[in-house]
């Protein structure tokens, strides 16, 4: 047996620093785009807008891809972002958190709101409060089952999706509610001229200011700055550790579902206003609202395993999808245009996901 010693090249044990040599600017940029979902989304968004504007200027589009069009299409942004945030909250809460029932909650709450505002003659504020409370109640049912009873979220919300959807249809004999007050609500969704800005500035859908911005700000503040946000991330990252740390895991997770329900209630009002009627299938017709919302959340960098997710990512992802879709409609006429939207959504999602995979291997994770 011999003693083999490796001579230390520097004579002293090397300092334990990360990164020994400075990477080049290009590789730092690449790293930024790959590891920071926000950066990637900004790049994609800029690419989409530049491409569409260029196409537009060279007359390849059937109509100008102009600021006024881009701003008119923002009306779709409101429900998409809000429900994306709802998914952000529940997915971040971990243990396979997800909410398939948001669309069904929108349908059912929309009907309840329709009754209150359109038929019982409640004031808008009272009806709005009712909608949010009712949505929260639906969310609370999910929350109790997931957080306190211990059901897997996917299954719970699949069950409540079926149940709420069914109730929304039955509650008014599948008739929409479209009385005068409900119809007049459209004015709260319509595009408006912004004050203090020149005439030429594009009109922006009012819902952006009345619903979207306040919700985004609140959710962002809550997640990034409050102790509740910290608890949510902690629970989502490792709920056993959170428990041992003294965090009330069940209540935190429960409240995430309640919040998602409340946001869905808000979306119900937005949808009623946008459609000028409370429709029993508002949130579940077609592919429904839940799938796009989950897609947006995931595209926005929310980790399906919990504990990771940022508000800005969700907003940017929704904006990307909305403006991409709007551009496709102008670029590709006929049925092919709407079909291509499916392709674009699928391709962007798979692309972003694959990028995540690469990033995980190369840099150890996305933020």
């Amino acid at each position: 047996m011999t003693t083999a010693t490796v001579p230390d090249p520097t004579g002293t044990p090397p300092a334990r620093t990360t990164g020994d040599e400075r990477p080049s600017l290009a590789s730092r940029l690449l790293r930024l785009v790959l590891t920071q979902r926000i950066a990637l989304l900004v790049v994609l968004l800029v690419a989409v807008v530049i491409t569409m504007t260029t196409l537009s200027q060279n007359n390849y589009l059937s109509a100008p891809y102009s600021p006024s069009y881009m701003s008119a299409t923002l009306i779709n942004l409101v429900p998409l972002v809000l429900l994306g945030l709802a998914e952000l909250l529940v997915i971040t809460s971990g243990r396979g958190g997800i909410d398939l029932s948001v669309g069904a909650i929108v349908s059912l709450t929309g009907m309840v709101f329709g009754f209150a505002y359109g038929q019982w003659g409640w004031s808008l504020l009272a009806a709005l409060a009712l909608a949010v409370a009712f949505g929260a109640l639906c969310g609370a049912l999910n929350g109790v089952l997931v957080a306190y009873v211990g059901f897997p979220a996917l299954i719970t919300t699949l069950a409540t999706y079926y149940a709420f959807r069914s109730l929304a249809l039955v509650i008014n004999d599948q008739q929409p509610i479209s009385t005068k007050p409900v119809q007049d609500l459209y004015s709260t969704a319509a595009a408006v001229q912004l004050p203090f800005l020149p005439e030429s500035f594009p009109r922006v859908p009012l819902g952006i200011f009345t619903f979207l911005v306040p919700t985004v700000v609140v959710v962002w503040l809550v997640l990034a700055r409050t102790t509740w946000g910290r608890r949510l991330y902690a629970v989502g990252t490792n709920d056993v550790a959170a428990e041992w740390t003294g965090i009330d895991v069940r209540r935190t997770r429960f409240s995430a579902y309640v919040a998602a329900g409340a946001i869905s209630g808000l979306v119900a009002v937005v949808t009623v206003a946008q459609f000028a009627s409370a429709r029993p299938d508002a949130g579940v017709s077609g592919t429904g609202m839940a799938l796009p919302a989950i897609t947006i959340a995931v595209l926005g960098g929310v980790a399906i395993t919990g504990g990771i997710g940022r508000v800005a990512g969700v907003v940017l992802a929704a904006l990307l999808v909305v403006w991409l879709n709007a551009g496709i409609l102008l670029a590709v006429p006929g049925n092919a245009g709407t079909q291509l939207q499916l392709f674009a959504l699928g391709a962007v999602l798979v692309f972003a996901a694959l990028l995540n995979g690469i990033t995980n291997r190369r840099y150890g994770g996305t933020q």
Partner: protein
Amino acid sequence: MTADPTPAAPPRLEVAGIAKRFGAVRAIRHADMRVDAGSVHALVGENGAGKSTLIKILSGAETADTGRVEFDGRPTDIGSTAAALALGIATVYQEPQLFAELTVAENVFTGREITRGGRIDWAAQNAKVVELLELIGLPARYATVAVGQLSIAEQQQVSIAKALAGDARVLILDEPSAILTDTEVEVLFGVVRRLAASGVSIIYISHRLDELFTIADTVTVMRDGQTIGTHPIGELSVRRIVELMVGGILDDARQERVVPDGDPVLELRGLGLEGAFHDVDVAIRPGEVVGLYGLVGSGVAEIGATVYGMSRATAGSILVAGREVSPRSPRQAQQLGIALLPANRKQQGLFGFQPISFNISAGHLPLLSRLGVWVDRRREREVARSSITRLSVKTPDEKQAVSALSGGNAQKVVLARQLVERPRILVLAEPTQGVDVGAKEEIHRIITQLADDGTAVLIVTSDLAEAIRISDRLQVVRAGTTTVEFGPGATQVDVLAAAAGAVDESGVPA
């Protein structure tokens, strides 16, 4: 680097010039090692020295960036775990790698099932597993039990059985003894010796340096991602190994403490939890360090969890400062001034991909916030930075994700969380499990200092040397209840005997 000039036979396994980085972290800078056939080769080093990474490379779980591997003198490329297994390199990883829903027999044979005509030959597998279980000292009927129903220590033993099931020529054990009781360790050593005698090479990683002298033939020391040297065990002492590991000299004398008089701040009276422990009596005064020592499975772990509100006691009472309490949740326990360091850091302690600062502040949100609502991010940062300095956590900054830290450094972060607000009562479950000697020293110093400042410390441990060294009083838990109490002068032999049930209760030393 020198090597035997004329080796009679090539070494079983030789690696040279191995380097491996994870993103920016250089886990291994340069590693050389040669393992002879039939020898027990210990690999030691501080937390984060790169031991686990090196053996992951040997077992095909990771691929080295540079370097070369020779097996029986032939250059080899260990590209995958399957390739390593095919060479006869079997590994017991630091974290048990088992499937909770599958039976022990299935776990042992996952990846190399015995089949007959495409169908699994359950009978043959079962017979082989029964043999293996006997070998490692577990009852034969465990073969058909789902692994999820076993204790962590038993799972660790199953992992060893699993490694032995293939005809291993190199057996790698990464800290196998960390969660085993001394009797189980003895069984393990028996197995290791028998294997070595039959020509199997063993690579053995441990932080319990004293045990190297009973089992190892050769010791390779790693420091900061480099192999510092390889020595026959005969040339070494514990002190020498430690000096090689840290590159310095340690003072390990026990400091005599005088515990101030006073009324107990924590008292357990006849405490019981059905199925776990019963009639537990403990009292701790402020400034006192009391150890609870028991073999794994003696119920000792559950006592700590009950005091912390994780389980509700089914008998007896808990008194804090003379008042009877019954914490229903960790939150309530914390409000009573009780803090706890959990035993299983990965599961119960760490928020993996979150920054160090997040991990520390998570337990103190009311303190580190305004009005209990807004997180005070500056104070959070300051607290994290000072904790990092105080516990010498090896990290570039407080924004580093804890998942990127080595096991021992991560343990320090979890410990740091318990120390932010000085608790009235601190329960520490296995505080230095898997922690290197330097950090262990550090943690012991901090515990003593806390006690000096008036905190009542309850240490729940299965590390006997630690229990004796740190405790002002040591209580032995056996068969689910407190039995004998020892003062500071206890010897390992006495305590172990009491824990194993050899001393009857009348012979209580002072």
